[in-house]
């Protein structure tokens, strides 16, 4: 099966919903089951909102589907040009928040996905990459 890929800007609140819909369709098309689709879309919602809130309305989501023998996967990258995350370990800790939310964002996303990596540079920006794998039908 051919790899699908794309990107979507994250500049307005409405882009969060657009990203969710885009990735819902892509995950269903890739063959993920309903629960995994919900996990992936929820992770997208959390990370797209992070980008929107912290990046001064400049950010982008890139995605691609991945295939290994017997497996399907999706990889997503959220890039913002915000202030950066000074302490990544602290940011992933459950309960940590700078935005007055529940603080479940990054730690929760990590639990929903199979892999999460964060690259961040102060005053330059942050890239959060997540991956989810499932069994091919």
């Amino acid at each position, binding site marked *: 099966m051919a790899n699908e890929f794309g990107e979507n800007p994250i500049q307005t609140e409405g882009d*969060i*919903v657009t990203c969710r819909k885009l990735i819902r369709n892509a995950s269903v098309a890739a063959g993920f089951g309903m629960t995994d*689709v*919900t996990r992936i879309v*929820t992770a997208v919602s959390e990370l797209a*909102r992070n980008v929107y809130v912290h990046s001064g309305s400049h950010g982008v989501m890139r995605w691609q589907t991945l295939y290994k023998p017997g497996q399907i996967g999706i990889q997503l990258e959220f890039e913002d040009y915000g202030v950066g995350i000074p302490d990544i370990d602290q940011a992933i800790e459950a309960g940590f928040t700078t935005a007055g939310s529940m603080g*479940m964002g990054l730690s*929760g996303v990590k639990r929903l996905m199979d892999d999460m990596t964060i690259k961040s540079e102060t005053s330059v920006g942050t890239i959060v990459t997540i991956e989810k794998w499932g069994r091919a039908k």
Partner: protein
Amino acid sequence: MDENTLSVIKLKNILLVTVPDEPGDDIIHELQTKVLHAIEKYQSKGLILDISNVNILDSFFARTISETTQMVALMGGKTVIAGMQPCVAITATELGLHLGKAISTLDVDRALDIFSDNFKLV
């Protein structure tokens, strides 16, 4: 369903709100304000939030539900969340979300039962 508006329906002395499947942040903000004003206007004793269409519950939506429940409680009302889909319940738990003091039921019928049971006691 029109995704850009939210209807607050008065049913005797409670309010029923059906949330669209992919609620945007604006709809979620609107939910809180509309509900609180409707409670004042109709002197409602409670709120049923029908989320059976909702296929994503993230931390922002969960926080708004939790806050709204608290605000409704301050105005003397009870909030019941009805009809959460299994995949949403699984994801919300894994993400670490909680809905504060809101009560949950399987569907709107059971939510209505909660209110009618309560009213018998009053």
